[in-house]
C-alpha cells in the first residue's frame, strides 16, 4: 500500500489556514512543549461548528472522517484516518473524571499559540487547561502526563 502524502508542517498549515477553532491537545502538544514522548495520534479539540471546515482542510492528506458532522456532534468525537490518525473531540462541554465542567469556549479563550513550523502557529491549551483535558479520559498515562505538567508548572515564575 502506498503511504499517504503527509507532511506535518503542511498539515498544521492547512488547519491554521482554514481558520477553524482547533486546539492541539494530547501528547503531540506535550512533545511540542518539550516532553520527549512517543505517540501515534494527533488529538484536537475543535468547535462543533467547524467540523466540515476542519475535514475539508485535511482532506488533501486523504484523511477520512469516521462520522458525518452531525453524527460527530451527537457523539462528541470522531477521528480521521489513513496511515495517520487524528482524534477529534467536538463536544462543547466535557466533564473530567471528577465531574469538573470544561467548556471549549473557555479553553479557546485562554489558548496559547505555539509555532510548530516556520510561520505556522497552532493553538494549545494553557497549562491549567491542559491538565484538565488530561482528566477527561483518566488513563494511567494521563496521570503520568499530569505529573510531568505539574512539575513543569512548578518551574514557572510566579
Amino acid at each position, binding site marked *: 500500500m502506498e503511504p499517504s502524502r503527509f507532511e506535518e508542517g503542511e498539515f498544521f498549515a492547512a488547519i491554521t489556514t482554514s481558520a477553524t477553532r482547533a486546539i492541539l491537545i494530547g501528547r503531540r502538544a506535550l512533545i*511540542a512543549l*518539550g516532553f*520527549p*514522548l*512517543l505517540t*501515534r495520534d494527533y488529538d484536537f479539540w475543535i468547535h462543533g461548528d467547524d467540523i466540515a471546515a476542519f475535514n475539508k482542510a485535511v482532506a488533501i492528506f486523504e484523511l477520512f472522517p469516521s462520522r458525518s458532522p452531525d453524527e460527530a456532534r451527537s457523539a462528541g468525537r470522531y477521528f480521521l484516518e489513513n496511515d495517520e*490518525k487524528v482524534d477529534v473531540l467536538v463536544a462543547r462541554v466535557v466533564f473530567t473524571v471528577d465531574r469538573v465542567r470544561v467548556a471549549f469556549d473557555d479553553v479557546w479563550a485562554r489558548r496559547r499559540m505555539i509555532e510548530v513550523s516556520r510561520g505556522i502557529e497552532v493553538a494549545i491549551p494553557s497549562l491549567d487547561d491542559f491538565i484538565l483535558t488530561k482528566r477527561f479520559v483518566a488513563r*494511567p498515562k494521563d496521570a503520568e502526563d499530569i505529573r510531568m505538567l505539574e*512539575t513543569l508548572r512548578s518551574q514557572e515564575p510566579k
Partner: protein
Amino acid sequence: MSAPPRWNPPSPEVVERIRRFTERRLSAEEFDAYVHAPMSEAERREILESVAWFKKRYPTPEARLAAARRAYKQWAQGIPGAHQSRKE
C-alpha cells in the same frame, strides 16, 4: 565472547494486552491517587532533565515534533500491531 541474545518482539496478543491495561479508564479515586502519589526529588529531577535535554537537542517545537515522529516510526517497526487502530 558469545553474541548478545537476539531481541524478540512481543506477540500481537501481548501488545494488545498491555495496550488494554495502560489505556484503561481509572475511577476518580484511582486517578487522583496516581496523580498525587508523592514524587521523589529524583523523579522530579529526571522529568526536568529530560525536558531540558529534549529542548536543547531539538530547540524548536518543529524539530521536537519531527524527532518524535522519527522515533515513533522506528519504535513501531519493532512492535507488532503498533499501527493498529483503536476503536473510538
